[in-house]
């Protein structure tokens, strides 16, 4: 089973929910936790430990200017503006390249070969017997987040996988949600949170993935979220109140399920609810 924690808005508590859920479940069974927020991965901060790093590479063109006749076909083909052909030179803008491999195919002289280029890593940690963490980490300045997400998910594939998605509704989130059995939408009970929950709900409907909601940092005034969830027939599984105590626990790199036994229970119960929804 693949469970994804997601939200349109950033900072609603996706990482916190994914980490607590994985911690609570891993007290009894094996879990893979995958950090799909490769621009800003944070799960490892809550599960420190020795690391094994697997490099993530992509293919970029290498043009042999001895063979190249500077005909310009590759530059014309490249839809991302990564190749610019001058009279007797070829300029390659690596950050524009999407690694599609088309330039190699289109070259009539076979002057284009491809070589590997590192854009990030997947860091693997084993913080406890039943928990393995796979963190996708994109090198700053790179843009091909989906490639790293795909690799982290491949390595982390197991009987039960919990993924922490990036904020938003665009390509990194769509990549994280591919193959998902359930999306856990983390909502903040504010007008911002509601607006972004609405967009995220549209996305999970489009992807046809069942979803449920966790309300985070509640001040006890969550009517707007509940009304929306009722209308959309989204179950609300759990409400986590705002508390300075909780904020301190998380800010310091710990988890409420680790510090408070009743919260370990609540996250276990959340997992039971999700399993029931998935097998329905």
């Amino acid at each position, binding site marked *: 089973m693949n469970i994804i924690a997601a939200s*349109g*808005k*950033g*900072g*609603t*508590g996706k*990482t916190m929910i994914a980490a607590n859920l994985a911690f609570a479940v891993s007290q009894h069974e094996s879990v893979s936790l995958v950090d799909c*927020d490769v*621009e*800003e991965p*944070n799960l490892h*901060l*809550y599960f420190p430990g020795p690391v094994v790093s697997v490099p993530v590479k992509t293919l970029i063109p290498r043009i042999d200017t001895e063979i190249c006749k500077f005909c310009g076909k590759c530059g014309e*083909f490249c*839809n*991302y503006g990564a190749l610019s052909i001058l009279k007797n030179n070829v300029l390659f803008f690596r950050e524009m390249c*999407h*690694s*599609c*491999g*088309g330039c190699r*195919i*289109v070259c009539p002289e076979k002057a284009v070969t491809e070589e590997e280029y590192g854009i990030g890593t997947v860091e693997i940690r084993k913080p406890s017997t039943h928990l393995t963490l796979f963190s996708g980490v*994109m090198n*700053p*300045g*790179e*843009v091909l*987040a989906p490639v790293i997400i795909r690799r982290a998910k491949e390595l982390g594939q197991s009987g039960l996988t919990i993924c922490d998605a*990036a*904020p*938003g*509704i*665009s*390509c*990194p*989130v*769509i990549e994280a949600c591919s193959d998902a059995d359930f999306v856990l939408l983390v909502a*903040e009970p*504010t*007008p*911002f949170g509601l*607006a*972004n929950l609405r*967009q*995220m709900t*549209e*996305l999970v409907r*489009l*992807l046809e993935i069942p979803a449920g909601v966790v309300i985070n940092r509640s*001040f006890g*005034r969550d009517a707007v979220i509940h009304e929306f969830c009722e209308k959309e027939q989204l179950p609300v599984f759990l409400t986590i109140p705002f508390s*300075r105590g909780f*904020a*301190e626990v*998380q*800010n*310091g*790199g710990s988890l409420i399920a680790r510090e408070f036994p009743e919260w370990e229970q609540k996250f276990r119960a959340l997992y039971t609810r999700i399993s029931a929804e998935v097998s329905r």
Partner: protein
Amino acid sequence: MKIAVVSGKGGTGKTTVSAALADLCQGSLILADCDVDAANFGIVFPAEDVVSEPYAGRDVVEIDSDVCIGCGKCEDVCRFSAVQVIGDAAFVHPLSCEGCGTCMLVCPVSAISRKKMVSGEIYTGTTEKGPLVSAELFAGSGNSGRMVHEVKRRAFSFAKSDNLIIDGPPGIGCPLMATIGGVDAVLMVTEPGVSAVHDLKRLVVVCKKMHIRMFAVINRFDLSNQQVREIEAFCQAENIPVAGKIPFDEHVVAAVSACMPVTRISCPASDELSRIRAFVSDSMKDS
């Protein structure tokens, strides 16, 4: 002066800070919301007379199933797993397709064509503080970096002689880089938590690569003193001025719920935001 409010980590208070800076600005002003995945600036400053334009920023391929012979060459070359032969014809998954056109190169029967896909709407409207350029990415439309670029381009075309405040996206990937290219400075909103501090450090790497002037703001600073010291030490080492430290203040929560800038309420957070604005504008004048 063109300022982008960014953070690395989401939810640190970018929109709250952007709205406060805009509210405190006296002269003419342009607002832009570059968080096209989750645009919220317009919730605080509702726009009137909004002109909405579809944005077709993304290419996808189409396969004519009448012409397709199902040979599978397209599926073999596609690096994005976007094409799949089912039965005797190939089909495209539009969510996965990156529009590169490599499949078109290998199709023996020219069954594949490329078209522009509308991936969202760009809005230009008038708020009480000045024009607001924002956008809404349609769910599942992929690439938001190009759309951010378009929002910023339009805001810049307004902003020739004015002040521009951009409410930026979280992260350090394409939307962020599209947001900060060409601005005069970024205001990085962080908070004293392990995640936010980690993300700030990665954000600084990207801003340095792009040679953008940086200021830091520590939000909800009184939730952990030890990490505030770590942030301050980091900023000092990186030569990044800390423009201010905003306390945790329930008035901020109330202002967000009421969809208004917190600077309209007299409270500790609001006082600090006034000082932050003064600090940034004085520093920019000096140089």
